[in-house]
């Protein structure tokens, strides 16, 4: 397809790199047009079946972990058939990718930014950190990353390498960093450094807890939601979630209205 003036693309991208540790994989795909307009917090939909095969039928949504020189990086955990197929794909074959999709994080001109990621919810935080630092060179950017265990964090090791980024980690089992929940890191950091704007992605209960904390402490908070998706482009209305009172009695659609929402739209 020609690339003039489009926001979204469907491309056959070549796999440039794929590596898996246990059940967590990193895949680098050559899709320049998608990378060009990509914003932090947006996602892509990747076909997870062999060409011409109809099973699994639906594309799989993945956050944009990183974009550089036309290369898109996604990081995913093998949980079912689709991710298993993707994990088995070899370098140099083509994958069908649609993106960039949804609305990314809104980056505020703020003094202090807290990037809170849990589990695979850490995936979007790399590109987000880069973007915030680029737009607010003099601001303080703190990444608070939580996982069940140290192993789950290995794939995100390179986030530590980002300049101007302060990284703190927590694990449920204490195998790395703070022994406990990522929200502890946030309360602690806010106590030490003061309030800031929060960008959050992770399991539902974690995001809700963070959202509540921010609400109580009058901090702005954006959350990135996950729902099952068929199209990812606002056509099927399959990705509905019910919002908070402020959003009225209708449903929000994660692929179109989100995946990033102002926390108040979802809770309280």
């Amino acid at each position, binding site marked *: *397809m020609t690339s003039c003036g489009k926001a*979204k693309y469907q491309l056959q991208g070549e796999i440039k790199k794929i590596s898996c540790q246990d059940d967590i994989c990193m895949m680098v795909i050559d899709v320049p047009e998608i990378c060009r307009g990509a914003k932090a917090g947006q996602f892509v939909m990747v076909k997870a079946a062999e060409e011409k095969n*109809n*099973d699994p*039928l639906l594309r799989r949504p993945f956050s944009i972990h990183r974009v550089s020189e036309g290369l898109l990086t996604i990081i995913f955990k093998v949980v079912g058939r689709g991710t298993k197929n993707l994990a088995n794909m070899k370098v140099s074959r083509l994958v069908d990718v649609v993106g960039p999709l949804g609305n990314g994080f809104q980056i505020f001109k703020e003094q202090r930014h807290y990037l809170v990621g849990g589990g695979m919810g850490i995936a979007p935080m790399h590109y987000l950190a880069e973007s915030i630092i680029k737009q607010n060179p003099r601001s303080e950017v703190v990444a608070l990353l939580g996982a069940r265990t140290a192993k789950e964090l290995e794939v995100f090791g390179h986030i530590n390498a980002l300049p101007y980024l302060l990284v703190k980690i927590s694990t449920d089992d204490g195998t790395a960093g703070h022994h406990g929940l990522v929200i502890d890191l946030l309360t602690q950091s806010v106590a030490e450094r003061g309030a800031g704007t929060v960008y959050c992605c992770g399991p539902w209960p974690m995001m809700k807890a963070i959202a509540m904390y921010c609400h109580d402490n009058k901090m702005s908070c954006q959350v990135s939601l996950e729902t*099952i998706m068929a*199209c990812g*482009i606002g*056509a099927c209305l399959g990705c509905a979630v019910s919002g908070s009172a402020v959003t009225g009695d209708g*449903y929000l659609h994660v692929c179109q209205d989100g995946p990033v929402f102002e926390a108040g739209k979802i809770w309280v």
Partner: protein
Amino acid sequence: MGVSRPDLTVTIGDWLLANPIMTASGTFGYGAEFADFVDLNRLGAIVVKGISHKPRIGNPPPRIVETACGMLNAIGLENPGIEKFLTDKLPQLKKYTCGIVVNILGDSLEEYGMLAERLNVAEIAAIEVNISCPNVKKGGVAFGTDAKMIYDVTKCVREKSNKPVIIKLSPNVTDITAMALAAEEGGASAVSLINTILGMAIDIRTRRPKLANKVGGLSGPAVKPIALRMVWQVAQRVKVPVIGIGGINTVEDVVEFLLAGATAIQIGTANLTNPHVAEELVVGLEKYLLENEIASVKSVINGLLT
């Protein structure tokens, strides 16, 4: 003898379509969602998401589940209602040259009639009447599985509308041909089939249905053999044009439906899994006709040898 450029046009009543490729209701939004993936002007027609009188918020999530070569949906006919559609959505579509078909649904004869009347506006090429969506407790199913009610709805819409009226049939019946004949008798300009097949999936961990609505409509490649059989059965019985729908993904699929007797086809789930498929199939169908030196797509329609 080679052919220069094959004739892709087909007609439904007095409505001339540039080609037989349409998009199916509920899988193509209101068109604009696909502007980045498809040159909408290449399509025969766009069928927009089903519209009711009042706005509907639809079913609670989860609304979709993936199944083997298919998917279940229980969207619950979420839509902004007819007035908002006319003011907000339709204007966006004006700039496109392809035919615009509005899919309507109601809980009563009156609602169907009122919707038909309200849609007697210039931009609209035809209306498609959804009497078959299995997701709504009232209306939907009852209308679609009872020949008498199909006749009544068709007659009522036919009287109120000055457009070609397409009646969209439900596959959840014993004898699809009886339903098609009822629609024809009621004055339908065409029948389209199939809508989704009622199905279910269960999460064995929670022991609950995977859909909040418990059951949903099955679509995608899985249903194609059933849809093709029904289109073939119906095409042999009715005189009005038949529009084939169900699991269409490839040019081969399109040709199969045309051979079975479909005058046009609609692409549904494939739009969701392969957003540029609609344009792909228009181009592919033209290529198929060229390579096989077929001057007009009309000579493929009903071409099945038995």
